[in-house]
Protein backbone atom coordinates (compact mmCIF):
# COMPACT_ATOMS: atom_id res chain seq x y z
CA UNK A 1 0.00 0.00 0.00
CA UNK A 2 2.70 2.31 1.01
CA UNK A 3 4.66 1.20 -2.01
CA UNK A 4 1.94 1.97 -4.56
CA UNK A 5 1.27 5.38 -3.10
CA UNK A 6 4.98 6.11 -3.26
CA UNK A 7 5.21 5.10 -6.91
CA UNK A 8 2.10 7.13 -7.64
CA UNK A 9 3.72 10.06 -5.94
CA UNK A 10 6.89 9.61 -7.98
CA UNK A 11 4.94 9.36 -11.23
CA UNK A 12 3.02 12.49 -10.42
CA UNK A 13 6.21 14.25 -9.54
CA UNK A 14 7.82 13.22 -12.84
CA UNK A 15 4.71 14.20 -14.78
CA UNK A 16 4.78 17.58 -13.15
CA UNK A 17 8.43 18.17 -13.86
CA UNK A 18 7.94 17.19 -17.48
CA UNK A 19 5.19 19.72 -17.94
CA UNK A 20 7.20 22.30 -16.12
CA UNK A 21 10.28 21.59 -18.20
CA UNK A 22 8.28 22.03 -21.37
CA UNK A 23 6.80 25.25 -20.12
CA UNK A 24 10.21 26.43 -19.03
CA UNK A 25 11.75 25.62 -22.38
CA UNK A 26 9.04 27.66 -24.09
CA UNK A 27 9.77 30.59 -21.82
CA UNK A 28 13.51 30.26 -22.25
CA UNK A 29 13.14 29.96 -26.01
CA UNK A 30 11.17 33.19 -26.15
CA UNK A 31 13.68 34.60 -23.76
CA UNK A 32 16.58 33.49 -25.92
CA UNK A 33 14.97 35.15 -28.93
CA UNK A 34 14.65 38.39 -27.02
CA UNK A 35 18.26 38.24 -25.87
CA UNK A 36 19.43 37.50 -29.42
CA UNK A 37 17.42 40.39 -30.83
CA UNK A 38 18.68 42.71 -28.10
CA UNK A 39 22.34 41.98 -28.69
CA UNK A 40 21.88 42.50 -32.42
CA UNK A 41 19.86 45.67 -31.99
CA UNK A 42 21.80 48.78 -33.00
CA UNK A 43 21.15 50.42 -29.63
CA UNK A 44 20.99 47.25 -27.55
CA UNK A 45 24.38 45.93 -28.67
CA UNK A 46 26.43 48.85 -27.39
CA UNK A 47 24.27 48.94 -24.27
CA UNK A 48 24.98 45.30 -23.48
CA UNK A 49 28.69 45.86 -24.21
CA UNK A 50 28.84 48.76 -21.74
CA UNK A 51 27.08 46.77 -19.03
CA UNK A 52 29.23 43.68 -19.58
CA UNK A 53 32.33 45.87 -19.25
CA UNK A 54 31.23 47.37 -15.93
CA UNK A 55 30.05 44.07 -14.49
CA UNK A 56 33.41 42.57 -15.49
CA UNK A 57 35.28 45.44 -13.82
CA UNK A 58 33.20 44.98 -10.69
CA UNK A 59 33.86 41.24 -10.61
CA UNK A 60 37.61 41.27 -11.28
CA UNK A 61 38.07 44.48 -9.25
CA UNK A 62 39.57 42.82 -6.17
CA UNK A 63 42.28 41.15 -8.29
CA UNK A 64 43.30 44.20 -10.27
CA UNK A 65 46.81 45.48 -9.47
CA UNK A 66 45.55 48.62 -7.76
CA UNK A 67 46.30 50.11 -4.36
CA UNK A 68 43.67 49.41 -1.71
CA UNK A 69 40.66 51.72 -2.08
CA UNK A 70 40.67 52.78 1.55
CA UNK A 71 44.41 53.17 2.15
CA UNK A 72 45.79 56.70 2.44
CA UNK A 73 49.14 55.94 0.86
CA UNK A 74 49.79 58.92 -1.38
CA UNK A 75 50.08 62.72 -1.34
CA UNK A 76 46.72 64.49 -1.22
CA UNK A 77 44.67 65.66 -4.21
CA UNK A 78 47.17 64.75 -6.93
CA UNK A 79 46.22 65.54 -10.48
CA UNK A 80 45.85 62.63 -12.91
CA UNK A 81 49.15 61.03 -13.88
CA UNK A 82 50.31 57.65 -15.22
CA UNK A 83 50.66 56.40 -11.69
CA UNK A 84 47.21 57.63 -10.64
CA UNK A 85 45.09 57.90 -13.79
CA UNK A 86 42.22 59.54 -11.87
CA UNK A 87 44.40 61.34 -9.30
CA UNK A 88 44.05 61.01 -5.53
CA UNK A 89 41.53 62.38 -3.07
CA UNK A 90 41.70 64.58 0.04
CA UNK A 91 42.98 61.69 2.15
CA UNK A 92 45.57 60.55 -0.37
CA UNK A 93 43.61 57.55 -1.61
CA UNK A 94 43.91 56.43 -5.23
CA UNK A 95 40.75 57.50 -7.04
CA UNK A 96 40.91 54.83 -9.74
CA UNK A 97 40.73 52.07 -7.15
CA UNK A 98 37.92 53.93 -5.43
CA UNK A 99 35.98 54.18 -8.68
CA UNK A 100 36.51 50.46 -9.30
CA UNK A 101 35.34 49.75 -5.77
CA UNK A 102 32.41 52.07 -6.46
CA UNK A 103 31.34 49.94 -9.40
CA UNK A 104 30.96 46.98 -7.04
CA UNK A 105 28.90 48.90 -4.49
CA UNK A 106 26.75 50.74 -7.02
CA UNK A 107 25.96 47.66 -9.11
CA UNK A 108 25.28 45.57 -6.02
CA UNK A 109 22.84 48.14 -4.66
CA UNK A 110 21.28 48.49 -8.11
CA UNK A 111 20.74 44.77 -8.68
CA UNK A 112 19.52 43.87 -5.20
CA UNK A 113 17.19 46.86 -4.91
CA UNK A 114 15.70 46.19 -8.32
CA UNK A 115 15.14 42.54 -7.43
CA UNK A 116 13.14 43.68 -4.39
CA UNK A 117 11.27 46.21 -6.52
CA UNK A 118 10.70 43.61 -9.26
CA UNK A 119 9.28 41.00 -6.87
CA UNK A 120 7.07 43.56 -5.13
CA UNK A 121 5.91 45.09 -8.38
CA UNK A 122 5.18 41.71 -9.94
CA UNK A 123 3.18 40.56 -6.91
CA UNK A 124 1.16 43.78 -6.83
CA UNK A 125 0.68 43.71 -10.60
CA UNK A 126 -0.48 40.08 -10.59
CA UNK A 127 -2.88 40.56 -7.69
CA UNK A 128 -4.39 43.77 -9.04
CA UNK A 129 -4.56 42.61 -12.64
CA UNK A 130 -5.84 39.11 -11.99
CA UNK A 131 -8.32 39.58 -9.19
CA UNK A 132 -9.28 43.19 -9.70
CA UNK A 133 -12.08 44.48 -7.47
CA UNK A 134 -11.24 46.02 -4.12
CA UNK A 135 -7.68 44.67 -4.12
CA UNK A 136 -7.07 46.51 -7.36
CA UNK A 137 -8.59 49.71 -6.02
CA UNK A 138 -6.62 49.69 -2.77
CA UNK A 139 -3.26 48.75 -4.28
CA UNK A 140 -3.59 51.11 -7.22
CA UNK A 141 -4.38 54.03 -4.93
CA UNK A 142 -1.29 53.19 -2.88
CA UNK A 143 0.62 53.00 -6.16
CA UNK A 144 -0.72 56.43 -7.14
CA UNK A 145 0.45 57.86 -3.84
CA UNK A 146 3.96 56.49 -4.37
CA UNK A 147 4.08 57.72 -7.94
CA UNK A 148 2.85 61.20 -7.04
CA UNK A 149 5.07 62.04 -4.10
CA UNK A 150 8.29 63.77 -5.14
CA UNK A 151 10.67 60.85 -5.62
CA UNK A 152 13.74 62.32 -3.99
CA UNK A 153 11.88 63.77 -1.00
CA UNK A 154 10.21 60.40 -0.37
CA UNK A 155 13.59 58.69 -0.61
CA UNK A 156 15.36 61.04 1.81
CA UNK A 157 12.51 61.13 4.29
CA UNK A 158 12.21 57.34 4.27
CA UNK A 159 15.97 57.16 4.72
CA UNK A 160 15.75 59.59 7.63
CA UNK A 161 12.97 57.53 9.24
CA UNK A 162 15.17 54.44 9.11
CA UNK A 163 18.22 56.16 10.54
CA UNK A 164 20.53 59.08 9.97
CA UNK A 165 23.34 57.67 7.85
CA UNK A 166 22.36 54.49 6.12
CA UNK A 167 24.03 51.13 5.89
CA UNK A 168 24.03 49.28 2.60
CA UNK A 169 21.16 46.93 3.52
CA UNK A 170 18.89 49.78 4.55
CA UNK A 171 19.63 51.68 1.32
CA UNK A 172 18.78 48.62 -0.73
CA UNK A 173 15.49 48.15 1.12
CA UNK A 174 14.56 51.83 0.92
CA UNK A 175 15.21 51.99 -2.81
CA UNK A 176 13.43 48.67 -3.37
CA UNK A 177 10.39 49.92 -1.47
CA UNK A 178 10.18 53.16 -3.43
CA UNK A 179 10.64 51.89 -6.97
CA UNK A 180 8.12 49.08 -7.44
CA UNK A 181 5.29 51.30 -8.67
CA UNK A 182 6.20 51.36 -12.33
CA UNK A 183 6.75 47.61 -12.61
CA UNK A 184 3.41 47.05 -10.91
CA UNK A 185 1.67 49.24 -13.47
CA UNK A 186 3.25 47.49 -16.45
CA UNK A 187 2.62 44.00 -15.09
CA UNK A 188 -0.98 44.85 -14.23
CA UNK A 189 -1.66 46.10 -17.76
CA UNK A 190 -0.13 42.98 -19.27
CA UNK A 191 -2.03 40.66 -16.92
CA UNK A 192 -5.28 42.40 -17.85
CA UNK A 193 -4.77 41.52 -21.52
CA UNK A 194 -3.34 38.03 -20.97
CA UNK A 195 -6.17 36.95 -18.69
CA UNK A 196 -8.72 37.58 -21.47
CA UNK A 197 -6.89 35.29 -23.89
CA UNK A 198 -8.50 32.01 -24.95
CA UNK A 199 -5.94 29.68 -23.37
CA UNK A 200 -6.76 31.01 -19.93
CA UNK A 201 -10.42 30.33 -20.49
CA UNK A 202 -9.58 26.85 -21.73
CA UNK A 203 -7.43 26.16 -18.69
CA UNK A 204 -10.26 27.29 -16.47
CA UNK A 205 -12.71 25.07 -18.33
CA UNK A 206 -10.31 22.17 -17.83
CA UNK A 207 -10.58 22.82 -14.11
CA UNK A 208 -7.42 24.74 -13.35
CA UNK A 209 -7.49 26.83 -10.20
CA UNK A 210 -6.46 30.47 -9.94
CA UNK A 211 -2.97 29.73 -8.66
CA UNK A 212 -2.33 27.22 -11.44
CA UNK A 213 -3.48 29.65 -14.08
CA UNK A 214 -1.27 32.37 -12.68
CA UNK A 215 1.72 30.06 -12.41
CA UNK A 216 1.43 28.32 -15.73
CA UNK A 217 -0.25 30.78 -18.03
CA UNK A 218 -0.08 34.31 -16.74
CA UNK A 219 3.37 34.45 -15.22
CA UNK A 220 5.29 32.95 -18.19
CA UNK A 221 3.63 35.52 -20.43
CA UNK A 222 4.40 38.40 -18.11
CA UNK A 223 7.93 37.34 -17.31
CA UNK A 224 9.82 38.91 -20.24
CA UNK A 225 8.22 42.22 -19.37
CA UNK A 226 9.09 41.84 -15.70
CA UNK A 227 12.65 41.05 -16.65
CA UNK A 228 12.94 44.07 -18.93
CA UNK A 229 11.49 46.33 -16.26
CA UNK A 230 13.72 44.94 -13.55
CA UNK A 231 16.76 45.70 -15.70
CA UNK A 232 15.57 49.26 -16.13
CA UNK A 233 14.92 49.55 -12.41
CA UNK A 234 18.61 48.79 -11.82
CA UNK A 235 19.45 52.12 -13.45
CA UNK A 236 16.88 53.93 -11.32
CA UNK A 237 18.24 52.24 -8.21
CA UNK A 238 21.84 53.18 -9.03
CA UNK A 239 20.70 56.74 -9.67
CA UNK A 240 18.77 56.82 -6.39
CA UNK A 241 21.69 55.48 -4.41
CA UNK A 242 24.14 57.95 -5.90
CA UNK A 243 21.78 60.86 -5.28
CA UNK A 244 21.23 59.83 -1.67
CA UNK A 245 24.97 59.41 -1.27
CA UNK A 246 25.69 62.76 -2.88
CA UNK A 247 23.35 64.46 -0.44
CA UNK A 248 25.39 62.90 2.34
CA UNK A 249 22.69 60.54 3.55
CA UNK A 250 24.58 57.24 3.46
CA UNK A 251 27.36 55.56 5.39
CA UNK A 252 30.55 56.58 3.64
CA UNK A 253 32.44 53.39 4.33
CA UNK A 254 30.48 51.84 1.45
CA UNK A 255 32.29 53.67 -1.33
CA UNK A 256 29.79 54.12 -4.13
CA UNK A 257 30.24 56.63 -6.94
CA UNK A 258 27.84 58.95 -5.17
CA UNK A 259 29.98 58.84 -2.01
CA UNK A 260 33.11 59.79 -3.99
CA UNK A 261 31.26 62.71 -5.59
CA UNK A 262 29.88 63.80 -2.25
CA UNK A 263 33.38 63.84 -0.76
CA UNK A 264 34.65 65.75 -3.78
CA UNK A 265 31.98 68.41 -3.36
CA UNK A 266 32.53 68.68 0.37
CA UNK A 267 36.32 68.97 0.03
CA UNK A 268 36.05 71.77 -2.47
CA UNK A 269 37.26 69.87 -5.52
CA UNK A 270 35.28 72.36 -7.54
CA UNK A 271 36.94 75.46 -6.14
CA UNK A 272 40.40 73.98 -6.42
CA UNK A 273 39.87 72.73 -9.95
CA UNK A 274 40.37 69.01 -9.23
CA UNK A 275 38.33 68.16 -12.28
CA UNK A 276 39.19 64.46 -12.46
CA UNK A 277 37.78 63.88 -8.97
CA UNK A 278 34.39 65.13 -10.12
CA UNK A 279 34.37 64.03 -13.75
CA UNK A 280 35.63 60.45 -13.47
CA UNK A 281 33.28 58.90 -10.88
CA UNK A 282 30.39 60.80 -12.46
CA UNK A 283 31.34 59.60 -15.90
CA UNK A 284 31.34 56.00 -14.68
CA UNK A 285 27.85 56.57 -13.28
CA UNK A 286 26.61 58.26 -16.44
CA UNK A 287 28.02 55.64 -18.79
CA UNK A 288 26.51 52.77 -16.80
CA UNK A 289 23.12 54.47 -16.84
CA UNK A 290 23.59 55.18 -20.54
CA UNK A 291 24.15 51.45 -21.03
CA UNK A 292 20.89 50.72 -19.24
CA UNK A 293 19.07 53.37 -21.27
CA UNK A 294 20.31 51.85 -24.54
CA UNK A 295 19.31 48.39 -23.37
CA UNK A 296 15.92 49.65 -22.25
CA UNK A 297 15.36 51.37 -25.57
CA UNK A 298 16.21 48.18 -27.44
CA UNK A 299 13.99 46.04 -25.20
CA UNK A 300 11.16 48.51 -25.69
CA UNK A 301 11.42 48.20 -29.46
CA UNK A 302 11.69 44.42 -29.30
CA UNK A 303 8.88 43.81 -26.82
CA UNK A 304 6.58 46.39 -28.38
CA UNK A 305 5.65 44.82 -31.71
CA UNK A 306 4.27 48.06 -33.08
CA UNK A 307 7.66 49.71 -32.93
CA UNK A 308 9.37 46.59 -34.26
CA UNK A 309 7.46 46.77 -37.54
CA UNK A 310 9.35 49.76 -38.77
Amino acid at each position, binding site marked *: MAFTSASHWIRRKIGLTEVRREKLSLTTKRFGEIMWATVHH*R*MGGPGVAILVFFVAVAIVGPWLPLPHWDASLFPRTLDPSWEHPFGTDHLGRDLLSRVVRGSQVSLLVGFLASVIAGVLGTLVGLVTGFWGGWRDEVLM*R*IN*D*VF*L*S*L*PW*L*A*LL*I*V*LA*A*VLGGTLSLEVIIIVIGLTSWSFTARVVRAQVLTVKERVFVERARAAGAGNMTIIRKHIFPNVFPLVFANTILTV*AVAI*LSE*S*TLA*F*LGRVDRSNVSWGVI*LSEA*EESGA*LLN*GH*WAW*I*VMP*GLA*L*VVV*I*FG*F*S*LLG*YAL*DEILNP*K*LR*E*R
Partner: protein
Amino acid sequence: MSEVRRVVAKRSINAVITIFGILTLNFFLINFMGDPLDLLVPRAPSIPENYRLENCIRYGLCGPDGLPLGVADRFFIYLYNLVSGNWGRSYYWRGTPVIDVVMPALSWTLILVGTSTIITIAIGMVLGAMSAARRGRAFDLAMTGFTLFFYGMPFFWLALVMQLAFTTPQFGLNWWPVFPSSQRYSQSIDVLVWTDPDHLLDIVYHLALPSITLAIGTMAGISLVMRNSLVDVMTEDYVVTARAKGLAERLILRRHILPNGLPPMVTLIALDMAFIFGGAYQVEYVFSYQGIGWVTITAIFYYDFPVLQFVVVLGGVAVVIANFLADLILLRIDPRIKVT
Protein backbone atom coordinates in the same frame (compact mmCIF):
# COMPACT_ATOMS: atom_id res chain seq x y z
CA MET B 1 -22.41 61.56 -22.41
CA SER B 2 -23.30 59.84 -19.19
CA GLU B 3 -20.39 57.50 -19.87
CA VAL B 4 -18.00 60.43 -19.88
CA ARG B 5 -19.59 61.81 -16.76
CA ARG B 6 -19.14 58.48 -15.02
CA VAL B 7 -15.45 58.43 -15.98
CA VAL B 8 -14.92 61.95 -14.73
CA ALA B 9 -16.67 61.14 -11.46
CA LYS B 10 -14.52 58.04 -10.99
CA ARG B 11 -11.33 59.92 -11.73
CA SER B 12 -12.23 62.73 -9.33
CA ILE B 13 -12.93 60.29 -6.53
CA ASN B 14 -9.61 58.58 -7.23
CA ALA B 15 -7.80 61.91 -7.19
CA VAL B 16 -9.35 62.84 -3.85
CA ILE B 17 -8.45 59.46 -2.35
CA THR B 18 -4.89 59.74 -3.66
CA ILE B 19 -4.50 63.23 -2.24
CA PHE B 20 -5.72 62.00 1.12
CA GLY B 21 -3.25 59.12 0.89
CA ILE B 22 -0.44 61.54 0.16
CA LEU B 23 -1.38 63.70 3.14
CA THR B 24 -1.51 60.71 5.47
CA LEU B 25 1.67 58.97 4.32
CA ASN B 26 3.52 62.25 4.25
CA PHE B 27 2.47 63.27 7.75
CA PHE B 28 3.29 59.98 9.39
CA LEU B 29 6.57 59.43 7.53
CA ILE B 30 7.77 62.88 8.51
CA ASN B 31 6.67 62.44 12.10
CA PHE B 32 8.53 59.15 12.31
CA MET B 33 11.76 60.98 11.46
CA GLY B 34 12.00 62.06 15.07
CA ASP B 35 9.95 63.42 17.93
CA PRO B 36 9.28 67.12 17.27
CA LEU B 37 8.86 67.69 21.01
CA ASP B 38 12.43 66.56 21.66
CA LEU B 39 13.75 68.62 18.79
CA LEU B 40 11.96 71.79 19.60
CA VAL B 41 11.28 71.96 23.28
CA PRO B 42 14.66 71.42 24.89
CA ARG B 43 14.51 69.50 28.12
CA ALA B 44 17.76 70.86 29.46
CA PRO B 45 17.16 71.94 33.07
CA SER B 46 18.78 75.32 32.42
CA ILE B 47 15.89 76.34 30.19
CA PRO B 48 13.03 77.90 32.15
CA GLU B 49 9.76 76.02 32.25
CA ASN B 50 7.62 78.86 30.94
CA TYR B 51 9.87 79.27 27.89
CA ARG B 52 9.45 75.61 27.13
CA LEU B 53 5.70 75.86 27.47
CA GLU B 54 5.54 78.96 25.32
CA ASN B 55 7.55 77.28 22.57
CA CYS B 56 5.44 74.17 22.73
CA ILE B 57 2.22 76.09 22.23
CA ARG B 58 3.73 78.42 19.66
CA TYR B 59 4.73 75.58 17.36
CA GLY B 60 1.44 73.77 17.80
CA LEU B 61 2.83 70.82 19.72
CA CYS B 62 0.92 71.50 22.92
CA GLY B 63 -2.73 72.29 23.42
CA PRO B 64 -3.78 75.61 24.99
CA ASP B 65 -3.66 73.86 28.36
CA GLY B 66 0.08 73.27 27.93
CA LEU B 67 -0.13 69.51 27.63
CA PRO B 68 1.63 67.86 24.66
CA LEU B 69 -0.70 66.74 21.88
CA GLY B 70 -0.71 63.16 20.61
CA VAL B 71 0.20 62.25 17.03
CA ALA B 72 -3.44 61.61 16.13
CA ASP B 73 -4.52 65.02 17.41
CA ARG B 74 -1.71 66.69 15.52
CA PHE B 75 -2.75 64.85 12.35
CA PHE B 76 -6.27 66.25 12.49
CA ILE B 77 -4.97 69.71 13.29
CA TYR B 78 -2.62 69.34 10.32
CA LEU B 79 -5.48 68.41 7.99
CA TYR B 80 -7.52 71.34 9.25
CA ASN B 81 -4.62 73.77 8.92
CA LEU B 82 -3.90 72.61 5.41
CA VAL B 83 -7.33 73.81 4.35
CA SER B 84 -7.45 76.91 6.53
CA GLY B 85 -4.11 78.19 5.22
CA ASN B 86 -2.55 78.58 8.67
CA TRP B 87 0.43 76.33 8.02
CA GLY B 88 2.19 76.85 11.31
CA ARG B 89 5.67 78.16 12.01
CA SER B 90 9.00 76.93 10.76
CA TYR B 91 11.39 75.47 13.34
CA TYR B 92 14.52 76.27 11.38
CA TRP B 93 13.60 79.75 10.22
CA ARG B 94 13.00 80.86 13.81
CA GLY B 95 9.26 80.80 13.86
CA THR B 96 8.59 82.42 10.49
CA PRO B 97 5.16 81.34 9.28
CA VAL B 98 5.59 78.42 6.88
CA ILE B 99 3.63 80.21 4.20
CA ASP B 100 6.18 83.06 4.25
CA VAL B 101 8.99 80.55 3.74
CA VAL B 102 7.24 78.58 1.03
CA MET B 103 5.67 81.30 -1.11
CA PRO B 104 8.81 83.33 -1.99
CA ALA B 105 10.68 80.07 -2.66
CA LEU B 106 7.84 78.96 -4.90
CA SER B 107 7.98 82.14 -6.94
CA TRP B 108 11.74 81.73 -7.44
CA THR B 109 11.25 78.13 -8.47
CA LEU B 110 8.59 79.29 -10.89
CA ILE B 111 11.16 81.58 -12.48
CA LEU B 112 13.83 78.88 -12.73
CA VAL B 113 11.91 75.69 -13.42
CA GLY B 114 8.86 77.26 -15.00
CA THR B 115 10.55 79.20 -17.76
CA SER B 116 13.11 76.51 -18.40
CA THR B 117 10.47 73.77 -18.59
CA ILE B 118 8.17 75.64 -20.95
CA ILE B 119 10.99 76.50 -23.34
CA THR B 120 12.40 72.97 -23.28
CA ILE B 121 9.00 71.42 -23.88
CA ALA B 122 8.72 73.46 -27.07
CA ILE B 123 12.25 72.68 -28.27
CA GLY B 124 12.04 69.05 -27.16
CA MET B 125 8.81 68.46 -29.09
CA VAL B 126 10.28 69.96 -32.25
CA LEU B 127 13.43 67.86 -31.95
CA GLY B 128 11.38 64.73 -31.30
CA ALA B 129 9.18 65.41 -34.32
CA MET B 130 12.24 66.01 -36.52
CA SER B 131 13.76 62.79 -35.31
CA ALA B 132 10.55 60.86 -36.01
CA ALA B 133 10.26 62.33 -39.50
CA ARG B 134 13.78 61.10 -40.28
CA ARG B 135 13.43 57.81 -38.45
CA GLY B 136 16.12 55.26 -39.09
CA ARG B 137 18.40 57.80 -40.71
CA ALA B 138 21.64 59.24 -39.41
CA PHE B 139 19.99 62.27 -37.80
CA ASP B 140 17.53 60.09 -35.90
CA LEU B 141 20.21 57.69 -34.72
CA ALA B 142 22.51 60.47 -33.56
CA MET B 143 19.62 62.32 -31.92
CA THR B 144 18.33 59.24 -30.11
CA GLY B 145 21.78 58.24 -28.91
CA PHE B 146 22.37 61.78 -27.73
CA THR B 147 19.07 62.04 -25.87
CA LEU B 148 19.51 58.62 -24.27
CA PHE B 149 22.89 59.75 -22.98
CA PHE B 150 21.39 62.78 -21.26
CA TYR B 151 18.13 61.05 -20.35
CA GLY B 152 19.42 59.19 -17.32
CA MET B 153 22.17 61.61 -16.37
CA PRO B 154 21.95 62.58 -12.70
CA PHE B 155 21.13 66.27 -12.44
CA PHE B 156 23.51 66.81 -9.56
CA TRP B 157 26.48 65.63 -11.58
CA LEU B 158 25.53 67.66 -14.63
CA ALA B 159 25.23 70.67 -12.33
CA LEU B 160 28.70 70.01 -10.91
CA VAL B 161 30.21 69.69 -14.37
CA MET B 162 28.53 72.90 -15.51
CA GLN B 163 29.96 74.66 -12.48
CA LEU B 164 33.35 73.19 -13.20
CA ALA B 165 33.21 74.29 -16.80
CA PHE B 166 31.82 77.78 -16.47
CA THR B 167 32.92 79.27 -13.19
CA THR B 168 36.66 79.77 -13.51
CA PRO B 169 38.43 80.07 -16.86
CA GLN B 170 39.08 76.41 -17.59
CA PHE B 171 41.52 74.81 -20.00
CA GLY B 172 43.65 77.98 -19.88
CA LEU B 173 41.20 79.90 -22.04
CA ASN B 174 40.63 83.46 -21.03
CA TRP B 175 37.77 84.08 -23.41
CA TRP B 176 35.79 81.28 -21.83
CA PRO B 177 32.47 82.66 -20.57
CA VAL B 178 32.07 82.66 -16.80
CA PHE B 179 28.72 82.48 -15.04
CA PRO B 180 27.83 82.74 -11.37
CA SER B 181 27.36 79.29 -9.87
CA SER B 182 25.31 79.98 -6.78
CA GLN B 183 22.53 82.12 -5.32
CA ARG B 184 19.64 83.77 -7.12
CA TYR B 185 21.20 87.23 -7.41
CA SER B 186 24.41 89.00 -6.44
CA GLN B 187 25.15 89.47 -2.76
CA SER B 188 25.73 93.17 -3.44
CA ILE B 189 22.00 93.67 -4.00
CA ASP B 190 20.43 94.39 -0.62
CA VAL B 191 16.85 94.94 -1.63
CA LEU B 192 15.71 93.44 -4.88
CA VAL B 193 13.77 95.89 -7.04
CA TRP B 194 11.90 94.06 -9.78
CA THR B 195 11.59 97.15 -11.96
CA ASP B 196 15.32 97.87 -11.94
CA PRO B 197 16.77 96.62 -15.26
CA ASP B 198 20.19 96.07 -13.66
CA HIS B 199 18.67 93.78 -11.06
CA LEU B 200 16.71 91.89 -13.68
CA LEU B 201 19.84 91.41 -15.73
CA ASP B 202 21.62 90.13 -12.65
CA ILE B 203 18.86 87.59 -12.05
CA VAL B 204 19.01 86.37 -15.64
CA TYR B 205 22.80 86.12 -15.35
CA HIS B 206 22.46 83.92 -12.27
CA LEU B 207 19.74 81.91 -13.96
CA ALA B 208 21.93 80.88 -16.89
CA LEU B 209 23.73 77.84 -15.50
CA PRO B 210 20.94 76.24 -13.43
CA SER B 211 18.36 76.69 -16.15
CA ILE B 212 20.57 75.22 -18.86
CA THR B 213 21.39 72.26 -16.61
CA LEU B 214 17.70 71.70 -16.02
CA ALA B 215 16.87 72.16 -19.69
CA ILE B 216 19.25 69.47 -20.91
CA GLY B 217 17.73 66.85 -18.64
CA THR B 218 14.10 67.75 -19.32
CA MET B 219 14.53 68.07 -23.06
CA ALA B 220 15.90 64.55 -23.44
CA GLY B 221 12.80 62.97 -21.93
CA ILE B 222 10.37 65.11 -23.91
CA SER B 223 11.96 64.55 -27.30
CA LEU B 224 12.29 60.81 -26.70
CA VAL B 225 8.61 60.38 -25.84
CA MET B 226 7.58 62.68 -28.70
CA ARG B 227 9.65 60.70 -31.19
CA ASN B 228 8.36 57.32 -30.04
CA SER B 229 4.71 58.29 -29.97
CA LEU B 230 4.96 59.82 -33.45
CA VAL B 231 6.75 56.76 -34.83
CA ASP B 232 4.02 54.64 -33.26
CA VAL B 233 1.41 56.53 -35.26
CA MET B 234 3.44 56.65 -38.46
CA THR B 235 3.23 52.89 -38.89
CA GLU B 236 -0.57 52.92 -38.65
CA ASP B 237 -2.57 51.88 -41.69
CA TYR B 238 -4.41 55.18 -42.04
CA VAL B 239 -1.14 57.03 -42.46
CA VAL B 240 -0.09 54.63 -45.20
CA THR B 241 -3.51 55.12 -46.80
CA ALA B 242 -3.18 58.88 -46.61
CA ARG B 243 0.20 58.68 -48.25
CA ALA B 244 -1.13 56.29 -50.91
CA LYS B 245 -3.93 58.62 -51.87
CA GLY B 246 -1.31 61.30 -52.52
CA LEU B 247 -1.79 63.61 -49.56
CA ALA B 248 1.05 66.08 -49.10
CA GLU B 249 3.54 65.02 -46.41
CA ARG B 250 2.84 68.20 -44.46
CA LEU B 251 -0.91 67.56 -44.47
CA ILE B 252 -0.40 63.97 -43.35
CA LEU B 253 1.62 65.29 -40.45
CA ARG B 254 -0.96 67.89 -39.48
CA ARG B 255 -4.16 65.93 -40.07
CA HIS B 256 -3.22 62.37 -39.20
CA ILE B 257 0.01 62.06 -37.29
CA LEU B 258 0.02 64.94 -34.83
CA PRO B 259 -3.57 64.57 -33.57
CA ASN B 260 -2.98 60.88 -32.90
CA GLY B 261 0.56 61.16 -31.62
CA LEU B 262 -0.04 63.92 -29.11
CA PRO B 263 -2.07 62.17 -26.38
CA PRO B 264 1.00 60.65 -24.66
CA MET B 265 2.56 64.11 -24.73
CA VAL B 266 -0.39 65.63 -22.87
CA THR B 267 0.27 63.53 -19.78
CA LEU B 268 4.01 64.12 -19.96
CA ILE B 269 3.66 67.87 -20.31
CA ALA B 270 1.11 68.00 -17.49
CA LEU B 271 3.51 66.09 -15.26
CA ASP B 272 6.42 68.32 -16.18
CA MET B 273 4.30 71.32 -15.27
CA ALA B 274 3.48 69.68 -11.95
CA PHE B 275 7.14 69.06 -11.21
CA ILE B 276 7.58 72.83 -11.21
CA PHE B 277 5.83 72.79 -7.84
CA GLY B 278 8.05 70.01 -6.63
CA GLY B 279 11.07 72.11 -7.48
CA ALA B 280 14.31 70.92 -8.96
CA TYR B 281 15.87 69.48 -5.83
CA GLN B 282 19.27 68.54 -7.20
CA VAL B 283 19.87 71.59 -9.37
CA GLU B 284 18.65 73.98 -6.69
CA TYR B 285 20.78 72.21 -4.09
CA VAL B 286 24.03 72.30 -6.08
CA PHE B 287 23.53 75.87 -7.23
CA SER B 288 22.27 77.03 -3.79
CA TYR B 289 19.25 78.48 -5.55
CA GLN B 290 16.72 79.15 -2.82
CA GLY B 291 13.62 77.73 -4.45
CA ILE B 292 11.21 75.04 -3.30
CA GLY B 293 13.67 72.21 -3.83
CA TRP B 294 16.36 73.92 -1.79
CA VAL B 295 13.86 74.68 0.98
CA THR B 296 12.75 71.03 1.02
CA ILE B 297 16.26 69.67 1.29
CA THR B 298 17.18 72.20 3.97
CA ALA B 299 14.00 71.32 5.85
CA ILE B 300 14.92 67.63 5.73
CA PHE B 301 18.46 68.31 6.93
CA TYR B 302 17.25 70.39 9.89
CA TYR B 303 14.17 68.31 10.68
CA ASP B 304 11.95 71.31 9.99
CA PHE B 305 8.69 69.37 10.16
CA PRO B 306 6.14 72.16 9.58
CA VAL B 307 7.84 73.29 6.36
CA LEU B 308 8.43 69.73 5.20
CA GLN B 309 4.83 68.68 5.80
CA PHE B 310 3.52 71.30 3.45
CA VAL B 311 6.26 71.48 0.85
CA VAL B 312 6.27 67.77 0.06
CA VAL B 313 2.49 67.74 -0.07
CA LEU B 314 2.56 70.66 -2.49
CA GLY B 315 4.64 68.67 -4.98
CA GLY B 316 2.56 65.50 -4.57
CA VAL B 317 -0.81 67.22 -4.89
CA ALA B 318 0.39 69.14 -7.95
CA VAL B 319 1.21 65.82 -9.65
CA VAL B 320 -2.21 64.36 -8.80
CA ILE B 321 -4.03 67.43 -10.09
CA ALA B 322 -1.90 67.52 -13.25
CA ASN B 323 -2.65 63.86 -13.89
CA PHE B 324 -6.35 64.50 -13.37
CA LEU B 325 -6.38 67.47 -15.75
CA ALA B 326 -4.41 65.49 -18.33
CA ASP B 327 -7.01 62.72 -18.08
CA LEU B 328 -9.79 65.26 -18.66
CA ILE B 329 -8.04 66.67 -21.71
CA LEU B 330 -7.37 63.18 -23.06
CA LEU B 331 -11.01 62.27 -22.55
CA ARG B 332 -11.93 65.27 -24.63
CA ILE B 333 -9.48 64.73 -27.49
CA ASP B 334 -9.38 60.94 -27.59
CA PRO B 335 -12.82 59.33 -27.87
CA ARG B 336 -11.39 55.82 -27.49
CA ILE B 337 -10.48 56.25 -23.85
CA LYS B 338 -12.71 54.43 -21.44
CA VAL B 339 -12.39 54.11 -17.72
CA THR B 340 -9.72 51.61 -16.79
